């Protein structure tokens, strides 16, 4: 076990305040947008068509997508008119404001009742390899630290060693993982876990699911079944359908979200791998098309690398 930690050990050992760490993580890789902006928003530069075009390009390069980019530019124009900005350096704040206007309403943390009568069930969904299982490990750790009792259901019975991966995480964060054998019915695993959790008065059950492409009809039907079976034990469950997105994803994230939402009703989003150079500009495009709350961000592979989504912090990280 100790060796699994190799990579994260360096981080865990340092362990500065969580916020500093997050800031460090987020800014370790200055975003391309931030880099570009320092060129565009130079003091003394005039605000003209070329500038707007350069800005447009930077936003597009951050994966914001055409629609969100247009909206941000329109807002920026309005704002800078109001403020009578003439110097490019005066555009930082209006830009941040325009971005915040889009994204801030989506920053709604996941609320988990103190000691729920029945387990609070979180179903984790998303396409392949985005970081679902890792997010579950980190989330289980975070919730445990906050005093919740947590159980995990190894609902990915398809991918090779997905169960073992989750069991490693369970050991690492000291949380019980309910699992069956490879190839078992995922819905049955979820069912077992929730029953076990109810019996033991456990507060939270996090259900893993196999990564799947949202275009595969049968796999989406399987996911619906998992949700249905969970609902049979408690009609209010799952209490959260948490969809995980990779920050590096481009415009396809919109299609992913639409399909998963149609299938199982996504109630929250998590954006992973923000410690890379991709800064998740796709969230702006997403925030323009849905009102689904953004819950968490993933900033690394260590146990501590899951943070609550904070709109201002996110915009700061992206704009620099």
């Amino acid at each position, binding site marked *: 076990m100790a060796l699994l930690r190799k990579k994260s050990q360096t981080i865990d050992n340092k362990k500065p305040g969580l916020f500093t760490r997050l800031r460090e993580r987020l800014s370790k890789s200055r975003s391309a947008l931030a880099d570009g902006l320092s060129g565009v928003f130079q003091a003394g530069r005039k605000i003209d068509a070329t500038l707007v075009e350069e800005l447009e390009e930077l936003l597009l390069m951050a994966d914001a997508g055409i629609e969100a980019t247009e909206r941000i530019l329109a807002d920026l124009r309005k704002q800078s008119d109001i403020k009578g900005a003439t110097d490019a350096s005066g555009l930082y704040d209006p830009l941040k404001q325009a971005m915040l206007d889009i994204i801030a309403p989506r920053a709604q943390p996941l609320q988990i009742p103190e000691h729920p009568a029945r387990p609070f069930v979180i179903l984790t969904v998303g396409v392949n390899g985005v970081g679902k299982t890792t997010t579950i490990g980190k989330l289980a750790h975070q919730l445990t630290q906050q005093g919740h009792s947590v159980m995990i259901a190894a609902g990915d019975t398809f991918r090779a*060693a997905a169960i073992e*991966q989750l069991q490693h995480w369970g050991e690492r964060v000291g949380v019980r993982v309910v699992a069956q054998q490879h190839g078992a019915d995922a819905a049955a695993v979820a069912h077992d876990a929730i029953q076990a959790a109810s019996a033991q008065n456990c507060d939270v059950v996090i259900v893993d699911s196999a990564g799947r492409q949202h275009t595969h009809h049968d796999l989406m039907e399987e996911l619906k079944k998992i949700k249905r079976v969970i609902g049979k034990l408690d009609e209010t469950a799952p209490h959260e359908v948490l969809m995980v997105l990779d920050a*590096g994803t481009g415009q396809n994230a919109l299609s*992913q979200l639409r399909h998963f939402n149609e299938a199982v009703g996504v109630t929250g989003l998590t954006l992973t*791998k923000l410690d*890379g150079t991709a800064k998740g500009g796709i969230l702006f495009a997403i925030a323009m098309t849905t009102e689904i709350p953004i819950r968490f961000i993933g900033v690394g592979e260590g146990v501590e690398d899951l943070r609550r989504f904070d709109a201002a912090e996110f915009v700061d990280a992206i704009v620099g």
Partner: protein
Amino acid sequence: MFEQLRDRLGDTLTRLRGRGRLTEENIAEGLREVRMALLEADVALPVAKSFIEHVRERAVGQEVLHSLNPAQAVIKIVNDELIALMGEHNDALNLAARPPVVILMAGLQGSGKTTSVAKLARFLREREKKQVLVVSADIYRPAAIEQLARLAHDIGVDFFPSTVEQKPLEIAQAAIDEARRRALDVVIIDTAGRLHIDDEMMAEIKALHGAVDPVETLFVVDSMTGQDAVNTAQAFNAALPITGVILTKTDGDARGGAALSVRHVTGKPIKFLGIGEKTDALEPFFPDRVASRILGMGDVVSLVEEVERASDKEKTERLAAKLKKGKGFDLEDFRDQLAQIERMGGLSGLMDKLPGMGGMPAMQDQTAARETGKLIAIINSMTPRERRYPDMIRASRKRRIAAGSGTRVQDVNRLLKQFAQMQKMMKRMGKGGMAKMARSLQGKLPGMPF
């Protein structure tokens, strides 16, 4: 969203119709839309821009006489250039080196490396009859080694065991030694996912690469990747002499612009596509398929080509002249058009090539082909006068035509109704383009499921 985009692209390009030569002006607008299409497909902006510039240079002044209209000519140039950029043909793996041939995988977290190791091993064993050994140098991700062990077991390929206590370098070297001892053909080394900005981890894979001197170093990239693909590809390519790319998860609906970005910045060929989670879901890469996918237009270009080849130019031109002179589109013309469609493999064959229309069940295919034949038979049973003046076809004539063509009166009625619609359409269209006509036919012919 993609449909909208397609429509937008279609609209702009349609406006370019009917001009004999591509000029700066008439392609500028079209290219702006192509730029948008590329961005929506996640082609990185700098790559999209340089690509567009390239297309502009190639397109200006080009004659469009041999194609049906300038719009299609632009699409064709865009498509040709996309294919050229992605490397005309399929680049196979270099397996000719002295065995054991070492293949090293590299890429970001979760891109599909481990799965691709198994797929590749299976591919090499089944298609190339190679004896393959796979090994995992991923000592970080929980259960990464177990994952590869399980996959190797499932496909019956040799797995070289490793543990998280070992160093990646030790693991790789031991595996290669083993392969040499056993005279195996290929060793595939899986590595941990890593961020290109993680200096420590990049140093690790550089050292690994230096020590094992792989024949192939494959960069594994997720087809859903957005604009950041340029940054990661650049960094990996700078750190390692990448020899090729595997583009994974193309079984989803990502447009895969990352393929173009990666190719553009690394200059390295895309060698394989991952097309599913199972170990047999690996395909050699063919640039044309990915090109049309990035453009989001189905096999629009092959449609253009087929139209060019199959359409009877003379008849098309005669029809155009007639329409221009204000003369009506009659049943004779309709029959010519239907015959052209039939030559192109039937309407369903045509529909298959149109965006979003692919994959019709074979059953409907046949029905549709039969329907086209039936329509032609009905028209053949008419007199020349009837073909010119369809209004004169009343009840008794309908019965005669039906009997003559072995159809029923309802069929004749349906044909006349379709013809009337077509006539209206032709009036609106003016100079007729086959592709456009075929598009407008959707849902208006029997046996078509739209």
